[in-house]
């Protein structure tokens, strides 16, 4: 029962967005109308506008969002995996700093409000001509995703029995091959989860894109805001874009879910 109430709260905004995307402007402004064909006549007006000839940058921004999300998540997971592996399997000591302190230091970067970092990044990017560039955005998101990826993956690597990597060494494999052929496959659920979280972060991000981009490298959240503020609020079109924006993270989640569900460590050690 509670679940049903919660579900209603959670799903209603999504339903409302879907319904609005098929309404005409008049139906939208005439007060609440809920049920298609009874309350209002569905139209595909907003969808024609979205995918037809347009005066806004939907396709470019969609491609940008997809590129930034997938590339920065890939980089963060790849670099994060090596860092997390190191923190899990070796004992470091830099003065007072041991493994746990290093890990904490890394994660603590996420405690800081991103707005603090963004201003510094803005000035740095200005000097490096990385403002409004795709490379710059990928790097910014990677840098911001990395601490979380390391934190998440470290736990996964710690769960992998050290004997498995030792066995691979005795079987004749060098360090990098051991990681790629034995250790990383066994951390697949962690890698998938980290990729998912990193992807969603950059996909949803508004702040970085707002400050660091203005034309070439803008993303979907920026486009949606522009639609709202530059013209009259076109709710029908906004809703259609909103639905499209929901789709890629769902696809990523469904695809990666297979890896997250797998019990990869079963049957390895007694």
């Amino acid at each position, binding site marked *: 029962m509670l679940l049903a109430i919660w579900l209603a709260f959670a799903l209603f905004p999504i339903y409302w967005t879907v319904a609005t995307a098929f309404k005409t402007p008049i139906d939208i402004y005439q007060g609440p109308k809920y049920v298609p064909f009874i309350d209002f006549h569905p139209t595909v007006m907003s969808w024609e506008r979205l995918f037809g000839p347009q005066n806004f940058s939907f396709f470019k921004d969609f491609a940008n969002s997809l590129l930034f999300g997938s590339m920065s998540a890939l980089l963060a997971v790849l670099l994060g995996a090596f860092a997390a592996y190191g923190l899990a399997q070796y004992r470091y000591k830099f003065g007072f700093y041991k493994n746990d302190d290093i890990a904490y230091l890394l994660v603590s970067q996420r405690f800081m409000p991103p707005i603090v970092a963004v201003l510094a990044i803005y000035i740095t990017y200005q000097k490096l001509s990385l403002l409004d560039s795709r490379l710059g955005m990928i790097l910014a998101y990677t840098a911001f995703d990395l601490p979380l990826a390391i934190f998440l993956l470290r736990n996964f690597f710690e769960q992998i*029995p050290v*004997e*498995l990597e*030792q*066995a*691979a*060494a*005795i*079987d*004749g*494999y*060098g360090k990098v*091959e051991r990681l790629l052929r*034995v250790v990383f*496959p*066994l951390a*697949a659920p962690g890698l998938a989860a980290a990729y998912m979280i990193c992807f969603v972060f950059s996909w949803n991000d508004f702040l970085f894109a707002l400050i660091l981009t203005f034309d070439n490298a803008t993303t979907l959240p920026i486009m949606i805001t522009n639609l709202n503020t530059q013209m009259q609020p076109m709710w029908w079109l906004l809703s259609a874009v909103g639905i499209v924006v929901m789709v890629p993270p769902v696809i990523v989640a469904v695809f990666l879910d297979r890896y997250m569900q797998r*019990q*990869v*460590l*079963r*049957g*390895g*050690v*007694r």
Partner: protein
Amino acid sequence: MASLQLTGVKKRYESVLALADVSFDLADGQFMALLGPSGAGKTTTLKSIAGVETPDGGEIRIGGRLVNDIPAEGRNTALVFENYALYPNMTVYGNMVFPLKAPARAEKFRAESATQRVFEVARTLGIASLLERRTWELSGGQRQRVALGRALVREPDVFLMDEPISHLDAKLRFEMRAELKRLQRDIGVTTLYATPDYAEAMALADVIVVLREGRVIQVGTPTAVFNRPIDTYVAHLLGEPHINLLEMEIQSRSGRLAAVGQGVEFAIHPSQAELLRQRVTKLITVGVRPSEVLVSPTEPDGGGDSGTVIAVEPRGATTVLVVRAGGQQVVAKVGGEQRLRPDSIVWIGVKPESLYFFERESGARVEVPHGEIDAAGASR
């Protein structure tokens, strides 16, 4: 195949000294058991030889070649881990072919012969039908065979096994013990086998190395180590039930020597008497194996010490008795079914020639001068 030499190998983990000084020689094709309780340094020794642990000092030579600075992947050893360490992301076949696809061996085992080799080994081990299975679909015994197979396919210079059968049930353990012995004889590979179980070590090995707290304390053939233990530790480690160690004193009884303590008296064999007579201290620890303790329900002709049975453990063909005689507690293993019950009165005695004598303080066996280690079986 190759010989193996360890010289003064040391290893310290943060606060724990794992290996204090491990030295031994293992000849080409020999089967050596590393015997010791958990924490004695068996696993660290094996991992140091395999190259996945780096010793702090000492030398390790495989086939005469110093391997201290050669990484694990360049040593061509095989290690069967105590927990098997199968790769859960691969099938049984994937696990077994993995060492053959390694860069170091890719030349030697081209794709086709690698497959052939895996089938060959799988057949020997009786797991040919499991090759397509995933590791989690296997029973403990099957996993153990796969781990063994993965080690065997590569034709290693040295074959290392870390308690490979200690987690199997008793029946399977017995079968695998016989099978390991046969395999090792057939292949003739130099083998180092770590185990806490003395019976396993005696059944399998040509030579036993006894480890204690990271130190080699005795090396010898199974019978030599069993019959001539260097000290109370080794005597206690080999044999089940454990040897009786009784604190006694050497006394002269009408011209003959006897060991006396807390109401128990054992006659001493003339051949040992001379050595014991010369000793300054008369305090001594007397060892007698439970199987050498004689128990009779009536007083024997030669006399003896009476005691009370406090526990009876029937074991089928034999019975283990715990007898309290005077202030001493003596465990005896006697043949057949016994009609004795707790509180029965019995007389115990020993054959004088079956007694062991140890220094009370150091635990060293009296007959063996310090520093001399029985290496009779170390080279055949």
